[in-house]
């Protein structure tokens, strides 16, 4: 029998295996530890940078652009929050893009192709769609597609659209002013974007805010002197007149006669600033401030005012305009017909070129130039807008007898419709107001004295005769109100001098005559057809705009009515 031992026997193979396994594990541990050490020391800066790149974001918080309102707070330009969607082609899953494209109403294959191209170029940012409505953006982001992000943005809307387009202007897709007030006051309206550094997760959620470099400051609101009600009716009437006369363009300006505040500033043709796809550069021209016109006969009241202000002439002074023309430096200056002997009032009423030529020659170039300059003719710009026209008034030494004569009835000099309206404020008390478009808290700025109050009253009375049956502007009359003004019909300048059949029809006027409240200038450029005189084309527009504007402003009628308002059941 063999004896069996119960004691475990030492097995060299077992020990060897145990040692080997232990060694392998130890080696693996050493490798892991070594790798850890390398990652934490040698590769640490690189890994830290890459980690930051994937999670830390420099985020810009866009500031809301200030609202532009009319004088009563009615919004004319409003920035509304929208979302700009973008994606990182390196992170996005191409399979998920068709659904996103469908939400955004863009062709799926176009999106996939552009993402693949961007990914192959190594780009990490492309716009998916800019300025998306928030509810649509929410739908897209709710899909939680990795690599698709949404940033806050603002889109500019113009509630009054075409009516205030030229004045308010327009911004581009980046919210930068391009035209009008949006351009002129871009820095003021824009505000300051906020900047912060945050840690974001894969879906764009902020999980940690590291630092705030700047806090977003919204742009301040800006109130204009514009009265949207007057702006609308001026726009409506001007548009109708331009269409009726098949005119090339037109403009109208309403100015408060006492403060110089611009209440309406409209141009035709206009454009819809809410639809950038249909913008045409020629429609974007603000003709009321950017176009220069020869004011024609609308300058005659200034020549006459200069004469009266000199003290050498009086409203009753008689001037013989026979035989209806006068020769100046081999040129003939004509009236429509031989008006014979006219007093100063008659010169305005009949719009006599011969009469004002006589007055201008008697006064001399220096006096006329000085008076016109005080009235604001030839000024560089009145609002400080980009693209604002610079007025033209020749210096006295340039005004020889012929140029002096033509300047006296509005040829050889140039103004914008707004400058002309500004000049006409001088007839409301003798002091020319500086026009302004922005509401200000400060007191009324000092005005420029042009003529005595007495002379301005005399001119107002003369201007009223223009709208009488005897005058050239009878169609400018407004029922219930005493209205004064001056018609102007100027030949347009072409390549070969003055055109025979291209005119600018102008009417500049003021109302009510007893206590002037509004100055209105209407310009219709190149009216076609039989009617082209200022009294035929521009005066009716003046009448319609002025009548409605005075009623809207609740200005008391200054022509006493023969009839009284009849109330049903009224006893007395």
């Amino acid at each position, binding site marked *: 029998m063999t004896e069996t031992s119960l004691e475990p026997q030492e097995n060299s193979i077992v020990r060897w295996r145990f040692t080997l396994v232990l060694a392998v594990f130890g080696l693996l541990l050493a490798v892991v530890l070594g790798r850890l050490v390398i990652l934490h020391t040698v590769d640490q800066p690189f890994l830290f940078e890459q980690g930051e790149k994937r999670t830390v974001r420099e985020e810009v918080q866009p500031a*809301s652009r200030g609202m532009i309102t009319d004088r009563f707070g*009615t*919004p004319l330009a*409003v*920035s*509304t*929050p929208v979302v700009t969607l973008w994606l990182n082609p390196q992170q996005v899953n191409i399979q998920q893009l068709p659904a996103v494209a469908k939400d955004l109403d863009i062709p799926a294959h176009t999106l996939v192709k552009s993402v693949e191209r961007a990914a192959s170029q190594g780009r990490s940012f492309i716009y998916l769609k800019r300025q998306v409505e*928030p509810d649509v953006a929410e739908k897209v982001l709710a899909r939680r597609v990795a690599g698709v992000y949404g940033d*806050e943005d603002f889109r500019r*809307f113009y*509630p*009054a659209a075409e*009516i205030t387009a030229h004045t308010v202007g327009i911004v581009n897709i980046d919210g930068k002013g391009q035209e009008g007030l949006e351009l002129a006051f871009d820095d003021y309206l824009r505000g300051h974007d906020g900047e912060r550094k945050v840690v974001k997760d894969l879906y764009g959620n*902020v*999980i*940690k*805010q590291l630092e705030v470099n700047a806090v977003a400051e919204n742009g301040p609101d800006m109130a204009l002197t514009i009265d*949207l*009600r007057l702006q*609308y*009716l001026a726009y*409506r009437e001007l548009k109708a007149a331009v269409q009726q006369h098949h005119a090339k363009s037109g403009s109208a300006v309403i100015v408060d006669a006492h403060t110089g505040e611009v209440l309406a500033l409209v141009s035709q043709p206009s454009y819809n600033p809410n639809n950038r796809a249909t913008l045409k550069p020629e429609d974007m021209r603000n003709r009321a401030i950017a176009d220069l016109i020869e004011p024609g006969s609308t300058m005659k009241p200034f020549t006459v005012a200069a004469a009266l202000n000199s003290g050498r002439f009086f409203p009753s002074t008689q001037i013989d305009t026979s035989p209806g023309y006068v020769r100046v430096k081999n040129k003939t200056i004509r009236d429509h017909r031989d008006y014979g002997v006219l007093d100063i009032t008659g010169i305005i009423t009949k719009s006599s070129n011969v009469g004002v030529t006589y007055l201008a020659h008697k006064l001399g170039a220096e006096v006329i130039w000085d008076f016109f300059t005080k009235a604001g003719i030839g000024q560089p710009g009145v609002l400080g807008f980009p693209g604002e026209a610079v007025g033209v008034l020749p210096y006295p030494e340039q005004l020889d007898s012929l140029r002096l004569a033509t300047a006296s009835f509005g040829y050889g000099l140039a103004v914008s419709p707004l400058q002309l309206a500004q000049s006409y404020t001088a007839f409301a008390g003798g002091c020319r107001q500086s026009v302004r478009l922005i509401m200000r808290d400060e007191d009324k700025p000092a005005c420029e004295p042009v003529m005595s109050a007495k002379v301005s009253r005399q001119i107002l009375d003369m201007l009223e005769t223009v709208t009488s049956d005897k005058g050239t502007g009878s169609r400018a009359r407004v*029922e*219930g109100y005493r209205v004064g003004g001056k018609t102007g019909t100027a030949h347009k300048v072409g390549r070969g001098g003055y055109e025979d059949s291209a005119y600018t029809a102008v009417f500049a006027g003021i109302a009510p005559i007893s206590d002037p409240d509004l100055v209105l200038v209407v310009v219709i450029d190149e009216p076609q057809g039989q009617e082209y005189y200022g009294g035929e084309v521009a005066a009716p527009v003046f009448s319609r705009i002025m009548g*409605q504007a005075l*009623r809207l402003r609740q200005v008391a*009628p200054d022509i006493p*009515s023969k*009839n*009284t*308002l*009849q*109330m*049903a059941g009224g006893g007395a």
Partner: protein
Amino acid sequence: MNALQGTLWGFVVVSALVQIAQVQHHRDLLQVWQAADKQRYLLLQEHTRLVLEKSTLLANGRVDQLARKRLNMKDPEQVQVLSE
């Protein structure tokens, strides 16, 4: 010496705990701020939408058309019998 070491270790532990609490507090506040900011954004959206809607409804051209066509209103005349 042991007491001082113990106190210092105590400070270390307490300050570590305070820091953890502060970080957590900061994250909580960030969440609150984020929620408030989102609320502000939504209110701004709503406000501007309402402003635009009001402007559209009160647009002079629209009111003018409605007054003339639907309400048969017309421009006032100088002398007018208001009703018989």
